[in-house]
């Protein structure tokens, strides 16, 4: 394409040129006023001089049209996945493709916007995606933007001037007018709660769009809690409803509330809310009974005292009842051991009772031992016996009614020789002992921690031996008894590790894990199913004492179930990763020897904003469309069926128009952008041509004068 134009580039500096023009005009005026002969011809001669001085040039440009660019932003947010909208937007895309493709020299840029990746901030942010796409499009080539969306866009700029280009911004809507939807709004939800207590969730059922007359005003809600039967509640629209949330265990507690689908409702996808809150355990109460002052007592005491989660009640038998001398009682710093209070009245208040080198010696009535055994078996309590040589002796607690709870009986022998505690095969896997620092065997096959010197020989009757000592005799035996737990440590030399003797050892880790396992810390359960979501990726972990674990049943948010096989990672640990296809609550279930294990994980960032309003609307996109003289178009009429063929407006390219949309058409603005490939300049009035013209006029003037 060529363009022609005439340029002037005077032969002298501009002020001189304009002075010459002024003089010429003045002379011409004087000549004409005096009506002298040939005045007109002289004026023409002057004009020829001026014209020659002005140096007119013909400019020929070689231009190449750049063509226009149209950007089509397709909304792929979650709200676009409901009620036949995916098919609808695909159909719209096809029609746009055909229409836009028919326009000459129009480049089409397709942008997929707001696709959920489980990480981005909430809502549909189509303008952010548009801005990203504008990065490599020259604003003067942009003929227009077409959004294909349901209209629920959360980042519409306040004014078109913020857009940075001058072109119409059209919207082609998916969905239909007068859609209707119900959802649950969370008014208040707890973030944490104390285990065993309950807190309130406040919710309300909201509706948007045009409610059909047939829709009932009373709706039913299904509440699903971990480990409980589903519960059905009924509620009124817009009425505040309080749902109690129980905290049955520490860590993540999840409640799901689902609103029954109403006929004619757009989607049921936003009828489900998930509340995740942390269960916090109340301080654990530990009763430590030291049978006599001994070197290991302070190890136990300091460990439990420094544990922020534990309230310690400690008693040391400083003087057994048999040892009486004449010292007046007011000179002794002794208090009575409140046995009735501790072992009868308030026994259930304790989470763990530790007998540290405790011997019977008639301190407690036999009835109380019975109480303790019952407390473990029926009330889910826990007893730890840290035995010294006393356990093998005649005053051993084994010779009390407590023996029914104890997992191993003494042979009567006390082994007093140096040995290194070792983890048994079970111990390698058991959460109490697995991975204890120093347990790795060195070249001699021994752990690297320090030695102990005393062990009571026992015959295990129940439970699991996780550590062994002299000649692989049991050192630490763990057992579940009824609802409760019992542990027996057959040596009182753990304090040698605390003092750093022979290199020391992980006494803190061992004793803390042991006491917390006894108190049913969920992290230390032997059979555990864990699910953790990171974005849309869910890691499922299974810890077990078994050699094999059964597959895990995965229930997706849409209710479909699949089975996942776990891969062994190391001894006692299996793991697999699941790519979630949609965000939501995933439920996991697996069989274990101890019963059914369940876990839940919430995949993806919960995007309440995205799914809160899903009814298609013109309102949000209208202001920008009005400002840019563009339009917002429905593609389906109210009440059209979901699979109906969408009507896409006719598309044309207009230049110099002031409005770009009508009832059934939309236009793109022809920006007529070009690049110049070359310029040819041709002088028009210089040299002999100008001289000839000048001579011609001068001669003509003389001739006229001479007549």
């Amino acid at each position: 394409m060529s363009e022609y134009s005439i340029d002037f580039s005077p032969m002298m500096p501009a002020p001189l040129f304009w002075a010459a023009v002024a003089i010429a005009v003045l002379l011409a005026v004087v000549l004409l006023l005096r009506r002298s002969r040939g005045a007109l011809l002289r004026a023409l001669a002057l004009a020829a001089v001026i014209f020659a001085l002005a140096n007119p040039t013909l400019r020929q440009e070689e231009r190449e049209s750049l063509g226009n660019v149209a950007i089509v932003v397709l909304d792929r947010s979650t709200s676009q996945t409901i009620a036949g909208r995916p098919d609808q937007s695909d159909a719209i895309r096809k029609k746009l493709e055909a229409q836009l493709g028919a326009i000459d020299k129009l480049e089409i840029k397709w942008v997929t916007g707001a696709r959920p990746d489980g990480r981005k901030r909430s809502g549909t942010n189509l303008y952010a995606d548009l801005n990203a796409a504008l990065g490599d499009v020259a604003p003067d080539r942009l003929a227009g933007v077409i959004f294909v969306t349901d209209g629920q866009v959360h980042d519409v700029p306040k004014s078109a001037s913020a857009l940075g280009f001058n072109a119409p911004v059209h919207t082609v809507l998916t969905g239909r007018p007068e859609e209707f939807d119900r959802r649950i709004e969370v008014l208040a939800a707890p973030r944490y709660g104390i285990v065993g207590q309950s807190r309130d969730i406040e919710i309300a059922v909201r509706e948007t769009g045009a409610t059909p007359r047939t829709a009932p005003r009373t709706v039913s809600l299904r509440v699903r809690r971990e480990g409980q039967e589903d519960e059905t509640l009924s509620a009124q629209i817009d009425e505040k409803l309080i749902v109690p949330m129980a905290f049955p265990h520490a860590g993540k507690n999840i409640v799901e509330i689902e609103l029954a689908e109403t006929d004619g409702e757009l989607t049921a996808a936003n009828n489900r809310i998930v509340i995740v809150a942390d269960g916090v355990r109340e301080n654990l109460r530990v009763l430590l009974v030291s049978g006599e002052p001994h070197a290991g007592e302070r190890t136990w005491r300091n460990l439990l005292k420094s544990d922020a989660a534990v309230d310690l009640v400690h008693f040391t038998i400083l003087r057994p009842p048999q040892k009486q001398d004449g010292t007046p009682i007011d000179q002794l710093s002794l208090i009575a051991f409140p046995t009735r209070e501790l072992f009868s009245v308030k026994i259930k208040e304790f989470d763990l009772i530790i007998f540290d080198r405790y011997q019977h010696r008639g301190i407690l009535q036999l009835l109380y031992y019975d109480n303790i055994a019952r407390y473990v078996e029926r009330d889910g309590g826990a007893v730890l016996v840290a035995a010294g040589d006393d356990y093998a002796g005649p005053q051993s607690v084994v010779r009390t009614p407590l023996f029914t709870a104890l997992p191993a009986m003494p042979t009567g022998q006390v082994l007093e020789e140096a040995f290194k505690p070792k983890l048994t095969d079970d111990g390698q896997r058991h959460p109490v002992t697995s991975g204890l620092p120093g347990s790795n065997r060195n070249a001699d096959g021994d752990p690297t921690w320090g030695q102990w010197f005393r062990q009571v020989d026992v015959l295990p009757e129940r439970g699991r031996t996780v550590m062994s000592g002299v000649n692989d005799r049991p050192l630490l035996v763990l057992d579940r008894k009824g609802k409760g737990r019992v542990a027996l440590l057959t040596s009182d030399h753990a304090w040698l590790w605390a003092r750093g003797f022979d290199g020391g050892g992980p006494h803190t880790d061992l004793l803390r894990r042991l006491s917390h396992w006894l108190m049913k810390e969920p992290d230390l359960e032997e059979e555990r199913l864990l699910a953790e979501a990171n974005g849309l990726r869910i890691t499922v972990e299974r810890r077990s004492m078994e050699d094999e674990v059964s597959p895990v049943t995965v229930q997706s948010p849409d209710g479909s179930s699949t089975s996942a096989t776990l891969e062994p990672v190391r001894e006692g640990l299996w793991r697999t990763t699941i790519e979630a296809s949609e965000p939501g609550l995933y439920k996991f279930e697996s069989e274990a020897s101890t019963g059914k294990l369940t876990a839940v994980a919430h995949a993806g960032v919960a995007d309440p904003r995205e799914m809160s309003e899903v009814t298609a609307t013109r309102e949000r996109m209208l202001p920008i469309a009005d400002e840019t003289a563009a339009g917002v178009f429905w593609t389906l009429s109210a009440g059209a069926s979901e699979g109906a063929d969408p009507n896409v407006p006719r598309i044309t390219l207009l230049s110099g128009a002031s409005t770009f949309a009508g009832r059934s058409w939309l236009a793109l603005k022809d920006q007529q952008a070009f690049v110049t490939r070359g310029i040819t300049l041709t002088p028009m009035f210089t040299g002999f041509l100008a001289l000839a013209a000048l001579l011609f006029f001068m001669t003509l003037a003389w001739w006229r004068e001479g007549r």
Partner: protein
Amino acid sequence: MPESHVLTKSFYLISTFPGRWDGGELWVEATEPQSAGGSRKARRADGVSSILITANDFASAWALDADNRPMFPVVPGGERQREWAFRTGVNIAMYALTGNYKADQVHVPSLLQRLGQ
């Protein structure tokens, strides 16, 4: 040593710590201020003094010969002082074994009361 130190009540209730001599001071390790105590070892967490210093010569008061007779006279004197010296020894042993256990006993009644709630 502060007046209310655990040593005064770890087994016997005592207020002076005589040995062969009486009247000398008993020194314990100062408890470190909390801010500086961030890196204290775990076994010192109960603040038990690792050293006791006195001019009262405890060992001479405790020393008995083969016939269980005291080897040195106590000054200013009397079996009562020797008895207190022995009690001091018992308290020190209890202190080493039980740490600040006795200091805690003060709180036991309130702890027990709290349990029921």
